[in-house]
Structures are given as C-alpha cells and as structure tokens.
C-alpha cells in the first residue's frame, strides 16, 4: 500500500457541528466463512451476518438499531468500531473512511468511538480495580500522563456516573450489576469520545435500575455532546431513548424512521409484527390491542431466502417478493421502508 503523506488524524473537538453527519455507513457487509475439514480447510459457505447496511448518524442524535437475535445488529456495531473489519462497504467517521486506515493509523480514532457492552459481569477485568479500569486507557492514549491528575479524573468520572469516588479501590465483584454498568459507562467516557455505541447496555439490568441508567445515558448525552448508536432488542427502551430507529432483519435494514413515526405508523410487515408482539405494561391497553403473531422462525443467515428475506413469514408476500431484493424507499419524509407491497 502506498502510504499517503500523513494518515488523517482526528481534529480536536471533532470539528463537527450539532446536526451534521458524524457517521456514514455505506453498503456495509460482513460475511463469516463457514469451513469444513481439519487440515485442509475449505470454505463451504458464508454466514451473511450483515448484508448491505447503510445509514447516517447526525451529531447529537441517538440512532436505535433493533432486531431479534442474529439479525446482525451487534456485528454492525462491531464493524463501526472496527473490532471486526467489514467484508466490504465504508464506515466514514467525521469525514474519514476508516476502512482505508491501517490498524496503527486507527489508534487515534479508537479514542473517539467507544462502546458500552451488555454484560456488566464479563466486560470488566475481574483482577483490576475500578481505578485501573478507568485510568489505564487514559495512560495508554496519553490523555492524562500524570498519575495524580489521573486519579482525580477517575474520581470525577465516577461522580459523573453516580458512584462515590471510593469505588476506585473496589474490584468488579464487589459491586452490584447496576454499579458495574455505571463503571462500564465511565470507562466509555474516560477518553472523551464523540461517539458511543451502546450494545444492549441496559438489557441485563432490573427495571428499577434500568431506569436509573437510561436517565444517566440521557444526561451524559446532553452534558458531553455525545452521539449514540443504541443497539437493543427491547423496543420500549429504544422508543424512549432514540431519535431515529432502524429495524434489522436477517442482516438488512427493513425500515428506518423517526422514533415516534416508526412506533405510530410502522409500515414494513416485519416491524408491524414485531411491535405487535411487544406487550405493553397496561392490562386495559392490552385487552384492546389486536395481536398479530408472527408464524415460524428466522431462517438461517447461512442460506437466506432469495428476494426479500422476510417473504416466507410475510402476510403480504406476492410472487414478486421471491425475485428481486426490495430497496429502501422513502415513503414519507424521513421514513424509509424496504417493501414493495406497502405504500
């Protein structure tokens, strides 16, 4: 590879104004090869975990990515983080195509894009005290080289996330799940990122603790001018927290719209079925709701159905759905749907 004069470095403060595009994902694909044979492995197929996903995120907004297990939402997040290098497609962050950077050139960008994982039990190193979990990244990235200042900053971060400063001396096992998740959030914040991917960040928490963490995420977004990609399967949480929502099914985005618009007027048959399956915590509302139960299960991403991937379970499917892959069309302003049978 011919090295360019200098690899692009992130500008201080991001240089992106609120409302402008901070992240562009274009035609992202991630295939995982399936191999056979012990010595001479040959590829016998590909799991198409993410298959042609495109979306934009504007600075300051929260985009929700929802779908059921195996729909590719987590892989999409990992590709944006460059934890998995995509098979093809572009991830453009603050105007720079991250796909064209080497691993070394990526380092300064990794600081800008952080992640909060689902499981507060397995995503923190059990042998490190909270102080090191938060201080180490600051040292590695040279943000706070002075140990005393670093300690002070750890205490500040804990305070921001609603934990007392003395927690810096604790090990992860000495804390509850909610407290651990707050440490996970503090860790994502310690490098002053512009963008945070929340991958099922509140799913493992009990309802009362979950509400505390949701409010914390909302406050931090305002305070630090953050942009979130919020990956989750819980539609009620996504509706509450996200400005716009993309629904994924079998590696593809089937619908994308403003949050209230999507939940008030779902257009894609899959989105409709998904929303109808979510029970609402109110017996009077539930008694009056029409419930549409989706038949069958999600097909294997190893061998997805031809044409529209949803057609085998779809109530609206016609012959044409088996042939061509439906494109995302803008049916209302800002409301994109990949279905030929709705208008």
């Amino acid at each position: 590879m011919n090295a360019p004069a200098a690899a692009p470095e992130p500008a201080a403060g991001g240089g992106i104004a609120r409302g402008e595009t901070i992240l562009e994902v274009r035609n992202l694909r991630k295939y995982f090869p399936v191999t056979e044979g012990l010595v001479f492995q040959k590829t016998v197929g590909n799991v198409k975990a993410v298959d042609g996903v495109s979306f934009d995120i504007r600075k300051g907004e929260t985009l929700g990515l929802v779908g059921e297990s195996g729909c590719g939402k987590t892989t999409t997040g990992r590709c944006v983080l460059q934890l998995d290098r995509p098979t093809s497609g572009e991830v453009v962050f603050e105007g720079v195509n991250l796909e064209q950077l080497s691993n070394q050139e990526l380092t300064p960008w990794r600081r800008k894009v952080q992640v909060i994982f689902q499981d507060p039990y397995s995503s923190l190193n059990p042998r490190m005290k909270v102080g090191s979990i938060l201080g180490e990244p600051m040292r590695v990235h040279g943000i706070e080289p002075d140990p005393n200042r670093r300690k002070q900053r750890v205490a500040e971060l804990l305070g921001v996330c609603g934990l007392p400063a003395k927690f810096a001396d604790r090990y992860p096992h000495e804390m509850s799940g909610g407290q651990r998740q707050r440490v996970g959030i503090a860790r994502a914040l310690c490098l002053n990122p512009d963008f945070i991917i929340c991958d099922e960040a509140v799913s493992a928490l009990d309802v009362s603790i979950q509400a505390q963490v949701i409010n914390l995420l909302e406050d931090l977004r305002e305070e630090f001018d953050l942009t979130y990609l919020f990956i989750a399967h819980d539609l009620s949480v996504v509706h509450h927290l996200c400005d716009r929502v993309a629904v994924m099914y079998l590696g593809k985005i089937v619908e994308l719209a403003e949050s209230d618009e999507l939940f008030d007027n779902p257009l894609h048959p899959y989105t409709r079925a998904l929303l109808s399956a979510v029970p609402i915590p109110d017996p009077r509302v539930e008694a009056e709701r029409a419930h549409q139960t989706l038949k069958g299960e999600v097909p294997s991403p190893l061998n997805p159905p031809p044409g529209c991937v949803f057609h085998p379970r779809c109530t609206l499917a016609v012959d044409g759905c088996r042939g061509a892959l439906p494109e995302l069309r803008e049916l209302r302003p800002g409301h994109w749907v990949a279905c030929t049978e709705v208008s």
Partner: protein
Amino acid sequence: MPKLLEVENLRTQFHTTEGTVKAVDGITYEVSEGETVAIVGESGCGKSVGAMSILRLIPNPPGEIVEGSRIVFGGQDILAMSDAEIRHVRGGQISMVFQEPMTSLNPVLTIGLQLTETMMLHLGLGQSEADRRAVELLGMVGIGEPERRLKQYPHHFSGGMRQRVMIALALSCNPRLIIADEPTTALDVTIQAQILELMRNLTKQMGVALIVITHNLGVVARYAERVIVMYAGRIVESGTADQVYHHPHHPYTIGLLNSVPRMDVRRGKRLVPIEGQPPDLTRLDGGCSYRPRCRWAVDACARSFPALETVGDGQIAACFRAHELQLDEASTA
C-alpha cells in the same frame, strides 16, 4: 372456583457463610383451579425460590423451608409428604417450565424418550400408547412432523422449539398446576408472543392453573388475571391486574410502573426510577425493607414491617400509608 393451592406463611432460608439469607420471608397466597397468577419482582426478590419451594426443590443444605410454613395442594400437605410422595406430585399433578430451554432438557436423550419416560412413570402408559400420545402432544404445541422430531435430540431444536417441547412435557401428565419460571425471558419477542399465546390457549382449554414468574410487567399485563408483587422476600401488593396497574397502593409497585418505558406513549417524558439498590437479604432489620428507597417513608416504617391490609376489593398492600397513595402522585412528588 375451588382452591387448588394454598401457601401460608412460607419462609425459605439459605444458610451461608455470610449469614442467613431470608430469600422468602413469610408469603401467603392462594391459587384457584384454572386461574393464571403472575408473580412479579426483580432479581433476588424470592419469586423463584418461592415457587421452587412448592415442589420442595430447594437443596438442603444450604436451603431450608422453615418450620411453620404450610403448602397445601389439592388438600394434600406438601411439606408433610415423604420423598416418594412428592416425586409423584412433581411432573405429575404439578409441572414446571423453566427459563432455560437449553439446560432443562437432557442433551443426550431424544425428545421422544424424555416425553414418553415421564408419561410411562406418572400415567402408567405402555410404550406404544406413550409414543402415540407424544406425537399428539408435539402436534398440540405446534411442532411440525412430530414423528420425525421425536427421534431428534435437543440440539436439533431452536430455543423457541425447545420451549415448546418443555410445554409439551409439562402438559404430558395432565397436571392441575403449571409453574412457569421466566418461561420466555431467553426468547426473542416474536417467539415470546408465540409461546405465551400457546401457554394461555392450552391452559384455558385444559383447565390447568398457571403460576407465571416474571420480571416483565408487559407480559403480566397481557396474560395474567391476578398479580402478586414481591420485594425482598415478601409480598408487598396483590390484586387483579387492573387494580395493581391502575390503582397501585404500594410505593414499590408505583415505582416499578414509573420505571418502565412505554412504547405507546409519545417520547419526551423522563423516566422516574426507584433510587438506590435492593437490600442485602442477610441484613434485613425489623422495619419495612423498602424504606431506604421509599419517598413516602415515615418513622413508623423503621419500627415494624407493615402487615398486608385490604385496600380494595380483593386487593392487598403492605404499607402504612397504602390508603393515601395514588399512582399519579409519584410523578408529582
């Protein structure tokens, strides 16, 4: 409806090196024939231990169902039964559906064997009769090609399909009560809807009573007739679903309802969480265990645990101020 199950002052404790954990601390409730009751609460509130105690599935040691507890099922005293007698009830008159369809089936036995073994044991059926009924049961829970599927192992089934097998297993011996412990927590929402719909239809059709243990307030609202809310090992409120959701009288119930985001209201409203953490069950004092997180707590709350009082037609709540509280107060308080 005649009473099927009576639980009276059930106390289950675990003796650990950290002290005695009062997992269930004096709960009393009843389930009538054919009724669906939901037990809700957060992790560690004792909802699962309470249900396991009904079948005496608490390992002893370290666990112990404390003297003075009473569990009466269909007129029989469960706690006075011999081991042989309780084995006859388990999987027979009372069956269970667990959360993890991956771990609650034996991975090295075919589905067919697991289904027929139970029926041959409890119903005294012969092999061919049991085989015929197994096919019928799989068909009933919506598994296609039952003859072929019976010869397969659990790993051939998806999570949702395994949970269907568990339901077939639970129904196989014509139980009078099914205890479902977080039956859909591990499943995707569209599969959750399929499974809950199936359980509701089959239990109605066969007149089986159902205890659903869950933390999901939406599932309760859609499927349960009666709701029991637990906190730190005790029942804090119980009533019909409509009473508990629309006229809750316990601060914890109100707090829970305010904590859940709702998909059917427009965005923009902030959630009102319950502050703080659930208590350590080894360090409970004599007062109300919800007191440290309660915004209505008064001095009396520290002195004794409030008894369950009637607050509506068949609705009870354990709070000194239960009569004063309303749901909408929570958002203005």
